[in-house]
């Protein structure tokens, strides 16, 4: 593990929905460049954990620290400004806008020009250059004028990641990026993720274990909201406890 300050740190983080404890007392440290997966059965609380980290939901107790700063009470947009980005398990794009417009919105999110009202967006060169670079690397530049709703599910999953990368994050949270993809597509997705900047920390929720083993080197296991196991991929693969959980006897 790298030394220095963690990109993301969770301390005793908990969330309850009424009587349901979806996330219980989770501790976690992610350092720059770390690649870690969070796995666990359906309803384990993985997405809820992401919602707490990204500020979509308020935590019931505990702390979220981004780059050493306590952001537990911060709204999402300020966390994003610190260098956090995420994708959604259920694709969340701007379906009626073109691929290019989707990416331009994502690029604009952290720029001060987002408040400019007296100049056409199309007159700014910078964001367009950047959109071009992003879309070319993902292979969508030729289809930049297609409305996103006309793309296939697999293509939308990719655009989902492109939007997250548009803000040049230092930590990226991916919520089941390969959900609903054919096996060839998820292999491509994994290859794409591996090509990303090695300094970028990635926290990956994924059910497709091929993708998990391909992309990350450490895995945390969430079960009924609790972090029950944490270790290198090989350890987790052979852990008796994890077998139990996935066989439903845990």
């Amino acid at each position, binding site marked *: 593990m790298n030394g220095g300050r963690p990109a993301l740190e969770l301390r005793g983080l908990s969330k309850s929905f009424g009587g349901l404890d979806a996330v219980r007392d989770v501790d976690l440290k992610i350092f720059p460049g770390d690649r870690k997966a969070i796995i666990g059965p359906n309803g384990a609380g993985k997405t809820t954990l992401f919602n707490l980290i990204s500020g979509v939901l308020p935590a019931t107790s505990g702390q979220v620290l981004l780059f050493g700063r306590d952001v537990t009470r911060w709204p999402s947009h300020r966390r994003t400004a610190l260098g956090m980005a995420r994708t959604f398990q259920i694709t969340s794009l701007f379906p009626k806008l073109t691929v290019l417009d989707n990416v331009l*919105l994502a690029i*604009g999110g952290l720029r001060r020009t987002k408040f400019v009202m007296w100049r056409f*967006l199309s007159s700014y060169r910078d964001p367009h250059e950047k959109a071009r670079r992003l879309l070319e690397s993902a292979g969508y530049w030729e289809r930049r004028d297609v409305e996103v709703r006309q793309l296939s599910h697999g293509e939308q999953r990719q655009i989902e990641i492109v939007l997250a990368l548009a803000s040049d994050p230092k930590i990226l949270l991916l919520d089941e990026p390969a959900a609903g993809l054919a096996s060839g597509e998820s292999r491509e997705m994994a290859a794409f993720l591996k090509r990303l900047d090695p300094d970028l920390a990635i926290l990956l929720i994924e059910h497709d274990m091929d993708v998990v083993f391909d992309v990350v080197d450490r895995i945390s296991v969430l079960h009924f909201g609790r972090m029950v196991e944490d270790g290198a991929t090989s350890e987790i693969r052979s852990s008796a406890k994890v077998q139990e959980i996935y066989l439903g006897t845990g």
Partner: protein
Amino acid sequence: MESRRKLLIVIAALLAVLIVTPFANSYVIVLVTHALIFAILAMSLDILLGFAGLPSLGQAAYLGMGAYLTAILATRFQFGLDWTFGLVVVLGILIGAATAALFGLFAVHAGGVYFLMITLALGMCVWGLAYRWNSLTGGDNGIVLPTRPEFGIQLADDVTYFFVVFGFFVAALALLTVLVRSPFGRSLVGIRENEPRMRILGYHTWLHKYLAFIIAGGFGGLAGVLWAHAHGLVSPEDVVLATSVDALLMVVLGGPGTLVGGAVGAGIVVFLREYLSTLVPWWQYVLGGVYVLTILYLPGGLMSVPERIRGWRARWENGVRVKFPRHTS
């Protein structure tokens, strides 16, 4: 290319209005002036409804604030009847914006139907003030304005006043056209399409909506100033719910999210109302019917008609091909 053609069409239409109107009969000149004023109000509402996805039912409140301000300054202080008219325009915009800044604190954090209800309630508050605050607003009778401003040019002349209103309309259209294509305007569209995603992308969405709300209020205030002098009378009638509903009807009829659609809708509604009301006593039901039919059968408004026709034609041609494959190949 497409957008250049649209621009040319809009400019041609504006020139046509500018050139033809002065030669029309005096009644039509007045109606066109009214339509242009309501077009400004409708475009201001379109920023909220069509671009940010905020269905405001209180847009008449800002028109009312601008109109009452103009009337009160003119009757109490004889202010704004000469070159100071320019100042009144600025003050009218400011009072509209300030009112929106206050109302926005209550309305903007609410979404969907709640936003509708809160703007409706706030609009009713303004109406209540206009109606009850007799000493200031003249209550039910309203305020009759003395004359139109005069500063080298005589606005009392309907044709001259038409030119002035036309100028303000074109300015508003130009400013708003730039706004909706600016980074800020595009952020409103993003918020309309997917607000939670915008937050995660780093946008403080509340602030963007709040600013849009204030800007819309400012343009509403401008419409109010122009309306006060156009009509010569400001009364609670101008701020009733029906005026806000009319503005909504204009936008929906013309096509939300198009700006120009609101202006087209304003023209149609103003003329339809004038002519229908002389023809049939139940004209309001006709307008209501038009409203319902538009929402049901033409959700994109009149501005979406060309695109629909293109769609039909394409489908029809395909249909022909499918039916008679041998004839076409």
